[in-house]
């Protein structure tokens, strides 16, 4: 925050850094940020909830994000997402009950040549099939 001179304009940069450091944005963290940047807490929460990138809940041990861009959609991304939801027992945007896997659909990641693409723990998997996903889930021990 000192790098940005504690300027309120830098709120989004600060939130990016905070989420990188802590994994998610806890209420206490948001209060601290609001105080340090001299912004009303409502403004901070307003910004956090506006943007898809920020997460208010802790993430699972592993994450699977299915690209929901047009090219991936045409290539059957929704079936991949269904598979993940079914296997992990949670909806897109949620984390499985045992905290093991976070499942989400993300906006086009601009790797349309690889459709359908899934981001597994930050790494892009190309031309993903359902069998491949099932194998990955088996590997990390999802029931």
């Amino acid at each position, binding site marked *: 925050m000192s790098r940005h001179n504690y300027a309120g304009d*830098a709120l989004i940069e600060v939130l990016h850094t905070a989420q990188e450091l802590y994994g998610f944005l806890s209420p206490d963290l948001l209060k601290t940020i609001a105080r340090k940047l001299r912004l009303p807490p409502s403004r901070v929460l307003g910004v956090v909830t506006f943007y898809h*990138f920020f997460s208010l809940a802790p993430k699972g041990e592993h994450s699977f994000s299915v690209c929901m861009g047009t*090219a991936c959609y045409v290539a059957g991304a929704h079936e991949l997402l269904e598979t993940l939801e079914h296997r992990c027992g949670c909806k897109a945007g949620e984390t499985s009950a045992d905290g093991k896997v976070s499942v989400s659909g993300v906006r*086009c990641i*601009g790797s349309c*040549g*690889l459709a359908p693409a899934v981001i597994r723990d930050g790494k892009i998997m190309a031309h993903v099939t359902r069998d491949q996903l099932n194998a990955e889930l088996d590997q990390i021990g999802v029931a």
Partner: protein
Amino acid sequence: MTQEELFEAQEREQQRQAGLENRIYCCTAAGCVSCGSETLRQAIADQIKAQGKEGKVEVCGTGCMGLCSRAPLVRTSSNGMIYGGVTPEDAESLVAAGGPADKRIDPQMPFFVRQHKVVLANSGYVDPERLLDYIACDGYQALAKALSDMTPQEVIAEVKASGLRGRGGAGYPTGLKWELVAKQPAPVRYVVCNGDEGDPGAFMDRSMLEGDPHRVLEGMAIAGYAVGAQQGYIYVRGEYGLAIRRLQAAVKQAERERLLGSHIFENSFGFRIDLRIGAGAFVCGEETALVASIEGRRGNPRQRPPYPPESGLWGKPTLINNVETFANIPDIIRRGSAWFAGIGTAESKGTKVFALAGKIANTGLIEVPMGTSLRSILFEIGGGVPGGAAFKAAQTGGPSGGCIPAEHLDTPVDYESLAAIGSIMGSGGLIVMDESSCMVDVARFFMDFCVDESCGKCVPCRAGTVEMHDVLLRITRGEATEADVAMLEELAVLLREASLCGLGQTAPNPVVSTLRYFRREYEEHMRERRCAAGRCRFESAAQVQGGAQ
């Protein structure tokens, strides 16, 4: 760095590269990286050491070479060949001899020879993480020329004469916009590069920023000089991690060499560029929402006028251009407006970058002169629909655009022609669909996107997109009637007329264009409860009744 030093550096680097026996370019754009190009690059570097060829053979990472469907790609300078689907096992032969002959890609294939590269000229030829590579390809010479030989007015006149139009999709003349900002009385002005590439299926900006970041920085600095701004911002999507890292590195390198910062080329002109990382909101591609987001607020658009050239960032005059627009600037200044105006059509000058995706043989990144026909782009360069399936439609402009059916394939690609057939140029995403895509479902997909991305500020968009999505959903389930389609058309007009910003105004476009060209599919869904593409699942009539009770 002075102008003389720039030329000296260019000459030295060109000589150094010419002295190499072989320079191996390994594509390290996001697509190839996820197919293992970093491991490949390491394997080549290891082989150079193992074969004792340090100093004679060199490996470097480079931007997108275009043919993403054959990733990972490698190009060797010794024979000018491109190899596709390269594995680390091929490293030995790449370093020792020409490379694996069976993985060569024919350089005469239409994919390569039918393109005309201006903004992508360096992509695949320079190492984006190395400033000298860009300098060797005439980098920063346009900035030097503008600062030493031209007044800001002359720069603007040159851009106006070139006929360059905004590449973000709307096609506003770039020179006019620059002039508008330059005319403002306020002394503090800003230049903003819009790299919030939100359209699903578009990856031109990502590839340009990853492959040749200095070109965009140079274009922005020239714009800063022309409109009298000293501060620039690049707004990049948070999803584009690699592009962000490369841009950050590029800004640092340029500042170290005094190509950005204060006293550029020992001139009194100074220009700084800062990065702003988006946080995942499609609406931030709209310029007033973009401004709000850079200021650290919720990305809500506001009423225009005043337009950002009058009142943008912190109420100051602000020039906002797209990545590709800025990337065109260095060449226009260096080679002159007449050269640029010689490419393209009467109304649309220059080239356009397209991202080919979907059901097409050669997915990837291409650049063609304006006015090239869609048929030539999709079937000659793109190689047509793979697997013998029939072409159904091409989608341009993402959720703001439309679907173009086969009968309009001969339409030349320029702003006016595409608008005339109910689509838009858009930023350049081009997605091909074959018979396995249901057009009603595609329209529903885009409407779902808009429901999610509507910022909620104005009612027509917030409620209208939900209503339209609801109707489309019912059609795909076979529960809709003719009256529903009439309502869909009525809502489309309402959204277009009454929404506050571009998102809501253009949200009905995919629906309107699919209704225009594929009405039969809508009718099949409603009357016969049949989806020719087999995409939509209809519950049996009994189940529907059961559900209603």
